[in-house]
């Protein structure tokens, strides 16, 4: 299905879909089909064995097979209308082989034995052909087979089993609440994802995984027809590796002593919509920021994206090595900097951990897409760069004899490659609340929510915006600001990190649609932090006249 067909199916129109950043994945199916159980494990094993045997007989020295059934559901409403309910399914098999020391890959959605064997043969033929232009053979870190094992996201309530009517009722209530509070337009959406993934390899692993994710979100717009101005306030939710329980608000998950409510592990979508509805007009009336240096206090709903772009991407080993040079770019965190053991990435307050196990996170799985058991490790320790993120065919380059389990493909039809694990800023060890953090600030801006984001291809220079900006003067929030963006250099920025709130403030943000690779693939990843302060950051004013 192409993007145009998808837009037609969601009925969102191009601007709405671009706002939501929705890629085209899978084909539409019925809700009823989406609720059917997964493919029988014994059948998957039989199909995988057909591929493994066919590839070996054609000369593959290593083979892995991924059988995927990917379900996605989009419930889309605007104002008082249900715009569309789309269930998509994508089912097929990807076969990756090593032959003559070179990778080959082929994928098919025809799951009979002949088609599988043909795809395996095509993968081997491609590998052998490409071996002609390979400079050195692939070197795979050893990986033992785990036999037949399984893993499932620990959800409480499967979003695909919640009736469409319940989701529609919630979203229409969200819309009504925002509009009564002052929004003129609102689009609200619940995205649900279920990846039923089966991995088998010639190492002897047969891994069955059932991965769930959910993202409720909205875009509420306030329009002033007289001036021709408009302002949009997006939801402060985050996509999570959870079931529908994320949408059942719990009092203990709310932070209520800041200017707008903030949410931990469950989300009150109706309450947030009420605030969004009135904040559109407040944003429009807010003072335009005076450009200059400010202390920035970044809420986790904003900081997650800055962590993602400025820490997550430059510590991907494949970028460091040049594998992404033609598209996503390379990295300023070159191997020589890491080898010194002294590269000063940030201040002593900066401790950043990679974690593929974190409960409720988007990146949590039992095993990655090349059959490696997942774990956690330090990336930045006391401000120093100590490690990267890597996979089986690159681990040896940084002296590791095992992969860190960072391999992922967004579909059965795409080849797996290195993707970011959850990368998170660790909370401060000394008790500190956001309110206490703000008390010390003479001239600052408190930023909530994510918005515009852009960073160069080596991850030095970035510019980020937010949903809500509050001016801080002499330790107090004095009002809202508008037209704010912060611009900085990664190393300078993280060295200006002067305080991190404690673990009671720790929250996860994240993205469903992190893009990388050619052809481009998306990946879902979370980034946690507590509210954090950065001193003396450059603020630009983004107001223009056309």
């Amino acid at each position, binding site marked *: 299905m192409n993007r145009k067909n998808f837009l037609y199916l969601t*009925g969102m129109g191009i601007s709405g879909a671009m706002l939501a950043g929705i890629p085209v994945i899978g084909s539409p199916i*019925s809700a009823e089909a989406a609720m059917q159980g997964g493919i029988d494990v014994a059948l998957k094993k039989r199909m995988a064995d057909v591929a493994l045997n066919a590839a070996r007989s054609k000369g593959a020295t290593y083979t892995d097979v991924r059988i995927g059934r990917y379900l996605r559901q989009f419930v889309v409403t605007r104002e008082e209308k249900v715009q569309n309910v789309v269930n998509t399914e994508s089912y097929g098999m990807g076969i990756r082989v090593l032959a003559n020391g070179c990778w080959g*890959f082929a*994928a098919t959605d025809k799951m009979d034995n002949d088609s599988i064997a043909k795809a395996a043969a*095509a993968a081997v033929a491609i590998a052998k052909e490409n071996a002609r232009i390979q400079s050195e053979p692939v070197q795979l870190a050893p990986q033992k087979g785990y036999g037949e094992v399984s893993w499932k996201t620990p959800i409480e309530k499967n979003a695909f089993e919640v009736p469409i009517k319940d989701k529609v009722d919630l979203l229409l209530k969200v819309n009504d609440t925002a509009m009564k509070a002052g929004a003129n337009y609102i689009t609200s959406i619940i995205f649900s994802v279920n990846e039923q993934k089966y991995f088998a390899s010639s190492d002897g692993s047969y891994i069955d995984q059932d991965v769930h994710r959910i993202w409720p979100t909205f875009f509420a717009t306030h329009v002033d027809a007289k001036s021709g101005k408009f302002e949009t306030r997006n939801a402060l939710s985050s996509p999570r590796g959870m079931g529908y329980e994320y949408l059942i608000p719990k009092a203990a998950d709310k932070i209520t002593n800041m200017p707008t409510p903030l949410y931990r592990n469950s989300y009150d979508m109706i309450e947030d919509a009420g605030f969004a509805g009135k904040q559109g007009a407040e944003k429009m009336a807010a003072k335009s920021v005076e450009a200059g240096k400010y202390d920035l206090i970044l809420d986790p709903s904003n900081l997650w994206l800055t962590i993602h772009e400025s820490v997550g991407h430059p510590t991907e080993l494949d970028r460091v090595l040049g594998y992404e040079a*033609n598209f996503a770019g390379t990295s300023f965190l070159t191997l020589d900097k890491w080898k010194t053991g002294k590269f000063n990435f940030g201040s002593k307050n900066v401790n950043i951990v990679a974690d593929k196990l974190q409960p409720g996170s988007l990146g949590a799985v039992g095993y990655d897409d090349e059959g490696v058991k997942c774990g956690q490790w330090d990336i930045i320790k006391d401000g120093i760069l100590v490690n990267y993120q890597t996979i089986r065919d690159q681990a040896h380059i940084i002296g590791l004899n095992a992969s860190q389990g960072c391999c992922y493909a967004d579909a059965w039809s795409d080849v797996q490659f290195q993707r970011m694990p959850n990368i998170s800023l660790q909370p401060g060890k000394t008790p500190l609340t956001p309110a206490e953090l703000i008390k010390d600030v003479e001239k600052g801006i408190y930023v909530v929510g994510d918005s515009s984001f852009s960073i160069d291809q080596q991850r030095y220079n970035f510019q980020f915006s937010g949903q809500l900006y509050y001016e801080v003067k002499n330790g107090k929030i004095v009002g809202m600001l508008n037209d704010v963006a912060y611009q900085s250099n990664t190393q300078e920025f993280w060295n200006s990190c002067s305080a991190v709130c404690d673990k009671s403030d720790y929250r996860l943000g994240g993205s469903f649609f992190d893009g990388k690779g050619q052809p481009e693939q998306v990946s879902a990843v979370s980034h946690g932090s507590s509210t954090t302060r950065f001193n003396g950051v450059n603020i630009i004013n983004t107001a223009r006249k*056309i």
Partner: protein
Amino acid sequence: MAILSEEEARSLMKKALSYSKADECEINLNGSDSANIRYARNSVSTSGAIAQTSLVVSSAFGKKLGVATINEYDDASLEKVVRRSEELAQLAPENPEFMPFLGPQTYAAPNPKLFDQKTADMSPKLRTDMVAQSLQVAKDSKLTAAGFLQNTGSFAAMMNSHGLFAYNKYSDINFSVTLRSEDGKGSGYASRDYEDYTKMDTLKLTKVSAQKATGSITAKAIEPGKYTVILEPSAGIVLLEQLYGGLDARSADEGRSFLSKAGGGTKLGDKLVDERVTIYSDPQNPDLPSSTWNGDGRPQERINWIEKGVVKNLYYSRYWAQKKGVKAIPGPDAITMLGGDASLEDLIKSTERGILVTRLWYIRPVDPQTLLYTGLTRDGTFYIENGQIKFPVKNFRFNESPIIMLNNLEALGRPERAVSGESFQSAMIPPMKIRDFTFSSLSDAV
């Protein structure tokens, strides 16, 4: 199975439609065969081939719609998928904006250049040979190459119970390459996309990239600020597509677009940019052939979007067009922006002081009210003085609106086919000379 002929597609969809008991039924059938090679560090990295098809059934009862899909095509499977979509439609909530499916449409025959069998059928050897040529340039120039080559054959068809039938067959070859100097101080880029693989000269494109990489090694830092820039087509396209992709009537009518006016109304019919700017779409353009129908079956015809600086047309959903009582013009595809006869070299020669930009990267919206975007230059940025390229400069971050940019137009060159590094869509774009382009900070990135 992946690429069905028009007759094969028609007969399969006709059979599926014969099982329908809904008020209305529409079938979409798509398939593609695609293969790629990815390379980096002067060696192949990953590569693959993928074949897939899908048949989508949309059944409607009144304003209730159900959608189901399948990739098996025996009679029993076809009947099952139709029944499933009907069951779902009965359970679905009513959509007040639902539009009945279109009746029979008249489509122009697609440009014969839209599909080239040899491009769809490229062998692994042919792909490897084309990449080998690119790798040889890198090795000969002592540079490091990373690139991507992909060929695709595909088809799309639709049929509905009101008699609509549409079919197109496509081929595509896409190539991009980045060459970097061994010390990491220089980087160059080139990219193209065609329907016919014989037009794709991987050797020539890699040489262009090599020249930019070698030429950018001694980049100097100059102060950010407002500069005259020459945007090569591959740089200009990423800002222009934000403009022509944003010509949505509904958001403009609703007051939440850069096209909305104070006091209500839209800028349709108003002069928005310099009078030398004309932007149109035409699926029959032999240099950029495209689909003759869009995703919901509406014919794609030649449409002027901006004519001599004036907004001439906006695009509509069928629902919004009906509500407004206007023709439902589908969104733009196969865009051409008119230019002049000047070459890129001519534009450089006529520039006293300015900056030549090869590529813009990581384009993100900053303010939808003014269509303000941010992003960075990349892979070859050069300082021009007295009509000559003097030296490479370090990359910049910009904050600029394509509307402001097209009001600060100095000159346009000859349009050429460019592919966007952001949307991967192709368009015919001229090199553009723009004054007062806003660079807001420096980047150390190479």
